[in-house]
């Protein structure tokens, strides 16, 4: 057996698995999205763009996803950045690892159970009851966009902190000293040195969270209570309740398309941002 054959033999089982369990299923979604719904649900072969023409019927789900996914990502970033900064730059090295692990531990426990905790906290007996005791009546938190955003930030905060921490931790601390030696105030140092150098970490964190949010189902299902729903919730409804496979496939395929386009634009923007920074550095 040559080395070449051996390599292929090693890769073959994984390749076959991907072919049957990923490539084949995704091609089904693509093909089905041009089909029609059968009388009892399911799929009837056809070639029509009807399903795509029907997409506006699920406009609210797309709108909610496209508004709350970026908003949730931004909120997570704003909360995560100062924490990552504190951990990477201002913390005694002896405590760094422990404190970072403490941020990541919640991420290792089920997102289902962590989101469920917020039903408790935001529900009628939770914060609204506390506010009522303080004389602020009739505050409704659960099943609102706010509840979903809180759930998103809570669920994905660790994923945002980690890459930013890594970027800030790698940063050469002598640069910060040099900046202050040259008379920069702390804020100027942060704005002109620290922040630009942490862009790769911020970019990675935002992308990870955003991609996961685009397909989110659990958080809106639990904290949106049918009032605030994402494309993921529409997909569950289409495939498991109304069994409209053709339309569901069109929705799924559109979701992937939106994701790819957004990520492509986003990566281009980040790349441009970094190029511009290099120009400044040369000057």
């Amino acid at each position, binding site marked *: 057996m040559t080395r070449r054959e051996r390599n292929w033999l090693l*890769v073959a089982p994984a*390749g076959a698995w991907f072919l049957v369990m990923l490539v084949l299923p995704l091609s089904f979604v693509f093909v089905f999205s041009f089909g029609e719904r059968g009388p009892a649900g399911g799929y009837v072969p056809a070639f029509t763009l009807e399903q795509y023409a029907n997409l506006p019927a699920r406009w609210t789900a797309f709108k909610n996803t496209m508004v709350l996914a970026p908003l949730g990502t931004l909120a997570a970033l704003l909360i995560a950045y100062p924490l990552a900064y504190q951990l990477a730059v201002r913390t005694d090295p002896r405590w760094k690892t422990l404190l970072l692990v403490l941020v990541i531990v919640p991420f290792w426990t089920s997102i289902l159970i962590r989101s*469920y905790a917020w039903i408790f906290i935001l529900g009628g007996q939770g914060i609204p009851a506390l506010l009522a005791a303080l004389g602020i009546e009739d505050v409704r938190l659960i099943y609102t966009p706010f509840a979903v955003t809180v759930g998103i930030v*809570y669920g994905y905060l660790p994923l945002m902190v980690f890459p930013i921490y890594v970027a800030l931790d790698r940063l050469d601390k002598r640069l910060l000293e040099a900046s202050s030696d040259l008379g920069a105030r702390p804020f100027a140092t942060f704005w002109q040195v620290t922040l630009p150098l942490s862009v790769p970490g911020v970019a990675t964190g935002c992308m990870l969270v955003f991609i996961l949010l685009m*397909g989110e189902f659990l958080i809106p299902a639990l904290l949106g209570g049918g009032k605030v729903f994402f494309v993921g919730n529409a997909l569950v409804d289409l495939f498991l309740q109304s069994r409209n496979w053709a339309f569901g496939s069109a929705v799924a395929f559109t979701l992937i398309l939106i994701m790819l386009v957004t990520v492509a634009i986003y990566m281009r923007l980040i790349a441009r941002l970094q190029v511009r920074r290099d120009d400044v550095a040369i000057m």
Partner: protein
Amino acid sequence: MRFYALSVYLFLYTPIAIIALFSFNAGRHASQFQGFSTQWYGRALKNPFVMDALETSLLVALVSATLASVLGTLAAVGLQGIRGPARAVFDGIIYVAVMIPGIVIGIATLIALVTVFDVLNPWLATLWPAAGQPPSLSMGIGSLIAAHTMFTMALVIIIVRARLGSLEQALTEASADLYATPFGTFRQVTLPLIAPAILAGFLLSFTFSFDDFIIAFFVAGSETTLPIYVFSSIRRGVTPEINAIGTMVMVASLLLLIVAQLVLRRGQRR
């Protein structure tokens, strides 16, 4: 700044603490603490639905994480020696596997397998000898394991490949110069060096599979995994039993994480 960090930690841990606290609630009410009791733990552990779901989840997680670790490691090793367009296609597939939302993997697997099974089942029935019930393919543990293995295998390949990339080529070359067979080099040089990465991949795969709700929701057929059980219970109304299950799951995954860390540390010291 310190105060800020402290409040973020509070934000992260208060909900978890509340779940743990209310799991010891004596009363039926999920939102009023009425004294300390461990009765909900007893009830959860005696509930046959919970135990069945737990068993299914553990089986699926163990089998899929093992398959993913073995096949993923083999693929990562094989991929090292593959260049050109074939390599680009394979990398693209791995990229797609981790990028595509879990929900899309779930529905894609559902419609593909159901359609294929509908075609295959009559065939199986005609090919089957007259006596006895012909086998019938359907969604269940098999499809669940297959789907979880697909996704987690991509994770294992990424992790192991990163580790392989950081290894010194000189080591394997030295081993070959000393007349070790390729398999001997792999077993005695490469494998011990990438073992921590394989273990990390296995743990990540196990945790992913055990916690996964969305893929399982579509491909589990009539099987119930623990996350599916918890989700449908929450839908029916909140009981302290869910808090007890949640607390046990959190403690178990924490212990797993600590044990893994200890094993990895010991491995490094050696």
